[in-house]
């Protein structure tokens, strides 16, 4: 769940007690970027907190802001229980079973038929109840199986999947598919890993469409697709 390197780095910086501000070291701007401010707004006046035309640097809190204090009946401070983490970290949550149909539809255009009867594999909460999904061996196995099933449909017809991947076609398809599945462009390292999978590691798969299906299913089994 946590972006470990970032968290570790922050912890180390904090431990030496010399955390500097990244953009502006004034007490009134302990956040980088456009500043969250005391009300969580960004001052654009529309109350939504975002300006769609503004490309912002990432927010970063490098020193604990002076939030208000909340007192329990015994005088203890409730805010003392807060963990010392930055904004924008520890954010990834597992997509619940209930949204997987929509997510498969969004990316593949189809919903794997077996998904409808797979609630038990994901410990979907019962009526009137709520729980964060906690993946298990069963659910991870089911994810790959379901993704493979959906990807078989996805790769069944297009001519681009009739031939085995090459370095060029794999790079193109991996980039396009990862962008679609992850809602972000993949890094060069991620594309290279995908190309290696398609062209080398899957070399024993003789059927081109099945080889593309494996590539597709691997992307849909990644944490980038399974979290939000």
């Amino acid at each position, binding site marked *: 769940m946590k*972006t*470990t390197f970032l968290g570790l780095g922050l912890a180390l910086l904090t431990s030496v007690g010399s955390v500097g501000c990244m953009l502006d070291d004034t007490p009134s701007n302990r956040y980088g970027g456009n500043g*969250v401010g*005391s*009300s*969580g*707004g*960004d001052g654009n006046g*529309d109350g*939504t*907190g*975002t300006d*769609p035309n503004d490309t*912002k*640097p990432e*927010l970063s*809190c490098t020193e*604990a*802001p002076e*939030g*208000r204090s*909340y007192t*329990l*009946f015994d005088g203890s401070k*409730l*805010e003392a229980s*807060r963990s010392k983490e*930055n904004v924008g970290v*520890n*954010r*990834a*949550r597992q*997509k*619940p079973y*209930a*949204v997987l149909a*929509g997510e498969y539809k*969004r990316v593949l255009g189809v919903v794997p038929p*077996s998904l409808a009867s797979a609630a038990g594999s994901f410990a979907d909460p*019962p009526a*009137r*109840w*709520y729980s964060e999904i906690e993946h298990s061996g069963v659910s991870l*196995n089911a994810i790959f*199986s379901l993704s*493979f099933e959906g990807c078989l449909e996805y790769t069944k017809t297009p001519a681009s999947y009739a031939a085995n991947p090459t370095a060029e076609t794999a790079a193109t398809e991996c980039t396009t598919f990862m962008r679609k599945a992850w*809602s*972000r*462009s993949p*890094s060069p*390292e*991620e594309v290279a890993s995908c190309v290696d999978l398609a062209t080398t590691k899957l070399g024993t*798969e003789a059927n081109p469409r099945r080889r593309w299906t*494996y590539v597709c299913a*691997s992307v849909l*089994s*990644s*944490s*980038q697709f399974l979290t*939000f």
Partner: protein
Amino acid sequence: MFITRLTTRSRRTLRLSLAMVAAPVLAAGAAFLAGPRAHAEGGAVDQAEANERCAVRLSIALLGKSADDALLSSSNPQGSVDTMLASADFADRYARFINSEFNGGPSDKADNDPVYYLAKKIITDGKPWSDLFLGGYDIQPGTNTMTVSDNPNGLGYFRTLSWRRRYAGNEDKGYMLTGAFRILSNTTGLTLIPSVGEPDDDRTASGRAAGACKSCHFDAWFALDKFARLLPMRKGQADTAEFDPPTEGPQQLLGKTLKDDKELVQALVDSDAFRFNQCRNVFKFLYGREENQCEAPQFDACVDALTTTKTIQSAVAAVAKAPAFCQ
């Protein structure tokens, strides 16, 4: 069906399958550590991609649904937060969430979930969130449901018969120690670790007033026995239990003289701890975890919204509309 397919695969295919499972995990791990930051370092952040991720995050967190095409292509997904908060999907999702926070576990019987039904009605009707604890409502069992109606003698869900029975506890005189803890926990977030004690321990009121038990039962601000004296007394057990009015008169609690359960809950709802706990729940709902130190400004905005506008929708909006939520 899946097992059949696995067992009929060739060994070669199975090896491929396992490789595929391992590859994305490794790739994902490496990519996750590098994360979007690595990509961002290569150039300007792609705002369209950021908006799309924001749409996915908002839709799943608030509605429990995949984002629709309009939201995915929106140049300002957070501008749709109010619309999402007015939907039946949000009312259901937050009611389920709060039911899971306030109840001990899921139940097959709808009668055991008055929290869910009342929370859903309060959200749907745009009522103050404090009505969940103080509002004049009657929550009666129906056929696989519960029906909420107005009742000036109501006290949120705390006077619902099924709730009282579920949390009546087994104290020998009928004091609702468990119910007292639940009221404290639901309002202020109090957490306690129950002590199982020894087999021969004196579990009567006099036993609880002695030794290690005394702290939680009589001395601490949450003195469970004193709170229970403001609650009805249980007669009978489990699903057939009935309740008599308390007889021990006003109690000195929370720095006040409180004469009944209504004054007790009112004092709790008026506290810092109530506002803090409800906004902590908002963070758990939106982030899947409690707020951290750097998120204090968003947290304070949530408390402000809950204090002024009073609805849970406004409290959720204060956090969901903040730039940090879509980061």
